[in-house]
């Protein structure tokens, strides 16, 4: 079998032994690299149009502003669907409280959002100077990602106190044991415990940590998850899915936000799960990290 030319990072190595020598074919990777470099140089010589930074900043701010507005209607509907879907599947055990909340979310959310969208649409504002980020989303880039907490071998972060903010998180505990070394998915419920509507953006994938008596034994790698816009009425809730793996890590396995490959399977036994998820308020409030209380999980 022919060796795979793409295995080698050496650009001087032949790119493909199946390619016959030919005057018009680059016989090695260096020729291909030179052809590409010559082409880029030729374009440089012909003159390139530089990036218009001001247009980029203005355009991206406007796009973020539009997304935030569009969010309102879409998210309320999605949130309602998520909760209703969870009820239909029989996930969780909140009983009447969930049913009441779901009804409220599904029925009230869209009405509120339509009013706001209508207001925005009516205003038809097209500002010449885009506002700064802070006024739009808060300093999103300053948010500590959920994967930055709960490092292997360290104590897990404390659960968010409902008194500190309107949003709380809770994991719907797995109903059965999770096989050692396997992947599993749990539902993470976000609830607005406050008296007013909460609007902003949530990270789309919560980070689920496995801990042993309060010490992290597995956490997800830095997630490349985007944000989902949310609008939750008082008592409203939504559910997201979070994944975890029943493997064991130590501080030595930490690799700049990721974990070493080929971690050993977690020894069978009783552990805990907790979830962390970032939230950015839409009103310029500080970004927060919402951490759920732990729930038991059996690895076996």
């Amino acid at each position, binding site marked *: 079998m022919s060796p795979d030319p793409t*295995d080698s990072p050496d650009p001087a190595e032949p790119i493909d032994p199946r390619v016959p020598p030919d005057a018009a074919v680059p016989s090695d990777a260096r020729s291909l690299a030179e052809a590409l470099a010559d082409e880029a140089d030729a374009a440089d010589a012909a003159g390139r149009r530089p990036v218009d930074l001001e247009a980029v900043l203005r355009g991206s701010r406007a796009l973020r502003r539009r*997304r935030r507005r569009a969010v309102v209607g879409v998210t309320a509907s999605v949130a309602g669907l998520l909760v209703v879907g969870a009820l239909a599947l029989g996930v969780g055990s909140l009983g009447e409280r969930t049913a009441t909340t779901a009804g409220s979310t599904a029925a009230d959310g869209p009405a509120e959002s339509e009013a706001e969208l209508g207001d925005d649409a009516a205003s038809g504002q097209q500002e010449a100077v885009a506002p700064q980020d802070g006024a739009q989303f808060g300093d999103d880039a300053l948010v500590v990602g959920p994967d930055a907490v709960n490092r292997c071998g360290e104590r897990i972060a404390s659960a968010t106190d409902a008194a500190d903010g309107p949003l709380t998180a809770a994991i719907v505990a797995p109903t059965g044991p999770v096989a050692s070394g396997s992947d599993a998915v749990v539902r993470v419920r976000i609830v607005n415990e406050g008296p007013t509507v909460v609007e902003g953006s949530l990270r789309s994938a919560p980070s689920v940590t496995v801990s042993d008596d309060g010490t992290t034994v597995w956490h997800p790698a830095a997630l490349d998850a985007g944000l989902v816009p949310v609008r939750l009425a008082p008592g409203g809730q939504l559910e997201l899915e979070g994944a975890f793996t029943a493997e064991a890590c130590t501080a030595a396995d930490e690799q700049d936000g990721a974990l070493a490959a080929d971690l050993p399977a977690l020894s069978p036994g009783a552990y805990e799960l907790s979830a962390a998820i970032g939230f950015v308020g839409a009103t310029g409030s500080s970004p927060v990290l919402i951490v759920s209380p732990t729930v038991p999980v059996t690895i076996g």
Partner: protein
Amino acid sequence: MARTWDDVATRLVAERGDALTRYAYLLTGNVDDAADLVQDALVRTFGTPRFHLELPRAEAYVRRAILNAVIDRSRRDGTWRRVRHLAVAPASTEAESTGTDERLDLMRRIRALAPRQAACIVLRYYEDLTVDQVAATLGLSSGAVKRYLSDALRALSSSIRASDAALLRQAPTRTEGDHVA
């Protein structure tokens, strides 16, 4: 100290703007298209709320956005792409006799590849990234990148062989001054 999106965008444009434009140019072959693609990709990248939007990650997002735009254009121009090699190969073989022409011919063949294959070729052989780095940049698995590279190299090889065969077939006809349909 953490940076805001605008700071990251400003740094990215200042430090990597030219590199991004060259990348787009190598995929499109048109300086104006390349500039437009980069501009749009930057707006899309920084117009989407994201966590941890630091410089290397932001650059990867922009490169993916550029590639996605090239893919979209490719789909729109799908009919032309499917038949383009039929038109390009004879013309290029007739015209080429210098190193510059060979380079142009090679670039035409690279741009005739599927966009993901072309992007892998550019990142691997122009940016000198490893397979794993290409995978991380484009959000693909390493296995997929290897497959794209292998397929691309095979396609480039086949393309050359096909044009050589066409050249041989056309030689007597061209001597007689006829055009090939």
